[in-house]
C-alpha cells in the first residue's frame, strides 16, 4: 500500500515515514503544496496523509482541488488546529478523517488503516482484527485459519465493526446496515446479534473483543498480543 505524506516538518516526516513503513506502507513524502498537487495527479496512492499548515499554501486548498479533480483517494488530514470550525471546514472540503496533533503513532496507523478498510479500497477486501480475518468478497470468517460459519446478519455486524476497528459504531448505524436483511425489524435485534457473535468469537479463541457502550454503541478492539 502506497501512502503520500504531505508535511513540511522534516523531523515529523522522518518519523511518519518510519512509523508507516513499519506498519507495512510504502511511503512517499512531499513538503510543499505544489509538490503535493503534482504527486496527487499521478494517482498511484492508496491513501494521503495531509498536513494543513504548509509553507506555500493551505492544505485545505489541495484537498478541495483534488476533490474537484475527481480524486477519490481517502485523505487523512493532520493539523494543529482543532477548533470545530476547522474540523468542519476540513470535512466539508472532502477530508475522510481528521487527526489533531499531537497524536500517538499507533493512532495514526489505526486511522489510516481504517480508511483503507472501506469497501472497495486496499484493505477493504480482507478485514483483519487480531487473529480474525473476514473476506468481504468470499463472505467467510477465519479465526487462526479455522473457518467460522456465521449467519448473514452476524457477519454483517462483524464486518462493519471490523471496518471501524477501535472506534464506536452507534447501534442506529448497525440497524441501518441490517435494514432489509431482517424481514421484520426487531427492536433488540442488534443486541441479540452482538450477543451471539461475542459468544462465538470467544468460543473460537478470537483475540478481538466486542465492547458494548450502553447508549453509545459498539466497538471492536484487538487484544494486546
Amino acid at each position, binding site marked *: 500500500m502506497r501512502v503520500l505524506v504531505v508535511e513540511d516538518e522534516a523531523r515529523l516526516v522522518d518519523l511518519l515515514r518510519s512509523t508507516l513503513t513499519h506498519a507495512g506502507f510504502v511511503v512517499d513524502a512531499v513538503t510543499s503544496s505544489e509538490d503535493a498537487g503534482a504527486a496527487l495527479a499521478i494517482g498511484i496512492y492508496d491513501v494521503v496523509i495531509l498536513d494543513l499548515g504548509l509553507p506555500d499554501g493551505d492544505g485545505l486548498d489541495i484537498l478541495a482541488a483534488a476533490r474537484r479533480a475527481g480524486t477519490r483517494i481517502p485523505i487523512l488530514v493532520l493539523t494543529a488546529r482543532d477548533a470545530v470550525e476547522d474540523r468542519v471546514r476540513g470535512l466539508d472540503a472532502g477530508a475522510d478523517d481528521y487527526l489533531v496533533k499531537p497524536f500517538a503513532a499507533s493512532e495514526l496507523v489505526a486511522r489510516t488503516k481504517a480508511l483503507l478498510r472501506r469497501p472497495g479500497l486496499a484493505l477493504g477486501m480482507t478485514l483483519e482484527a487480531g487473529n480474525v480475518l473476514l473476506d468481504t468478497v468470499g463472505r467467510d470468517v477465519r479465526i487462526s485459519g479455522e473457518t467460522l460459519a456465521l449467519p448473514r446478519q452476524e457477519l454483517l455486524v462483524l464486518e462493519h465493526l471490523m471496518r471501524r476497528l477501535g472506534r464506536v459504531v452507534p447501534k442506529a448505524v448497525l440497524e441501518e446496515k441490517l435494514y432489509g436483511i431482517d424481514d421484520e425489524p426487531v427492536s433488540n435485534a442488534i443486541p441479540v446479534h452482538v450477543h451471539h457473535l461475542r459468544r462465538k468469537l470467544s468460543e473460537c479463541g478470537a483475540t478481538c473483543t466486542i465492547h458494548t457502550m450502553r447508549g453509545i454503541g459498539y466497538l471492536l*478492539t484487538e487484544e494486546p498480543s
Partner: protein
Amino acid sequence: MMRWPSSLQAQLALRLTAVLAIAAIVGVVSLFHESNQTADALRREELLSRADELAGLIDRAADGTVRVRLSQRLAQVFNNPGATDLFVIRAEGGEVLSTSRPDLAPATRGWPPAGAEPRYSRIKGFGTASQEYCALALRSASPAGPVSIIVARAIDGDTLAHTILKDFARDVTWAILLFAFAILAVAIWSIRRGLDPLRVVSAQAATIGPESTAVRLGGKGLPSELVPLVTGFNQVLDRLERGLMLQREFTANAAHQLRTPLAILTVHLDQLPDSPSIQLLRGDAARMNRLVEQLLRVARLDAIPPSQDVVELNALVADIARGLAPWAIGQKRMIGLDGPEQPVWVLGRADALGDALRNLIENAIAYSPPQSEITVTVLAEGAVRVADRGPGIPEQDRQRIFERFWRGRTALGQGAGLGLAIVAQVVAAHGGSIEVGETPGGGATFTLRLKSVEHDGVAGPRNWIAATY
C-alpha cells in the same frame, strides 16, 4: 419629590413647555391689559361727551334753582330703575345741584373737585359694594356758574363696543393657547426626529459584541454634535478589535507551534523500543500533551466568548462519549449514556460545551476504579449528569475543585488541575451552573446545567455527526 427626567427628549420638551407656557401667559395678560386700556379710553371718550352734553343742558330756573333738562334719550339712560349710568352735578362749594340717583349723591361728596382737565378714574365700593364703576369728573362753566359734572357708569353695563372688545380678547386668548400647543407639538416632534440619529447609533452599538467586532457606528445624517463621540467610540472599537484579533492569532499560532514539536516527540517515543525509562518518558509526553491541550482550550475560551447558537445535547453528548469510548476501553472503564427520546436544545457553542463535557468525562474516567461504568445522563431540562464510582469529592473541597491549577489530595498525578476549571469557565460563559454531589453508593456526580430553549430543529448539528461518520 418629582425627579428630573433623565431622557434628553423629555428634558427638552419640559423646558420648551415651560417657555411656551410663560410666553402664552405673558401674551394673554398683556392682551387683557391692552384691551382694558382700550376699553378705558373708549369709556372716557363716551363719558366725556356725555358730560359735555349734560353741561349744555344745565339751566337755572326762575326761582334760582339749578336743574338739568334731560333730553328724552338721556332721561331713558339715567332715570330708569335699573340704570347703570348716573350723574352728579355739584356747585363749586360741593353742594349737589342735581343728580340722577339722589341715594348715591352723598358718596361722591368726598371726591376732589374736578380740575381743569377732565379726570377719569375707576371707583369701587360705590353703590353696591361689588359693583365697579368708571367715572369722569369735568369742570365746566354753566348758566349756574362753574360746576363739577361727574358722570359714572357701571363697568358691567358696558356698551356694545366693550362687549366686542372683550369677545375679541377672549378669542385671541384661545388662539394664543392653541398656537402655543401647536408649537409645542411640532417642537416635540422635531426633538424626536432630531434625536433619531442617536437612537440609530445606540442600536448599532447594541449589536457589537465579541462575535461581531467589525461593526462601526455612524451613517448618513449624523448631527455634527455626535460626530466626535461616534468617532472616538469607533477608535476604541478599532483598538479592541485589534487586541482581540492578536489574541486569537496568538492562540492559533501557539497551538500550531506547540503541537508540532509535541507530535514529533510523541511519535518518536512511540517508536523507541520499550524500556522502563521510555515508558516514563511516554507518560511525561502524554502529560505535556494534555497540559498544552488544556491551556489552549483555556486560551481559546478567553479569546472567543461563546455565541448563542442552539445545540442539541443528546447528539453532542453522544459524540463526545463516542470519541472517548476507545480510550475508556483502553483504561478498562465503561461509559453508559442515558437520555430522553426527544431532542434537548440548549443555548451555547458546540465546541466549548464539548470541551466541558469531555473534561468532565475524562475526569470521571481518571478517578473511577477499573471495570466500573461512568454514567452520563442527559436530562430533558437541559442538563447533563456525569456520575463516577470513584472516591468522591470531600464536602470541603467541592468549591475549590473548580479553581485553576487546584489539585485535590487524591489527585492521581496525571492532571494539571485545569480540567474542572475549564468546565467552570465554559459553564459561567453560558450562564449555566455546575454542581458536584455524591453518587448513590459512592463516587462523585457532576451536574452541568445549561439554558434550555424551545427549538423545532429535527436533527442534531450536522457537523457533530459528520465529524465522526
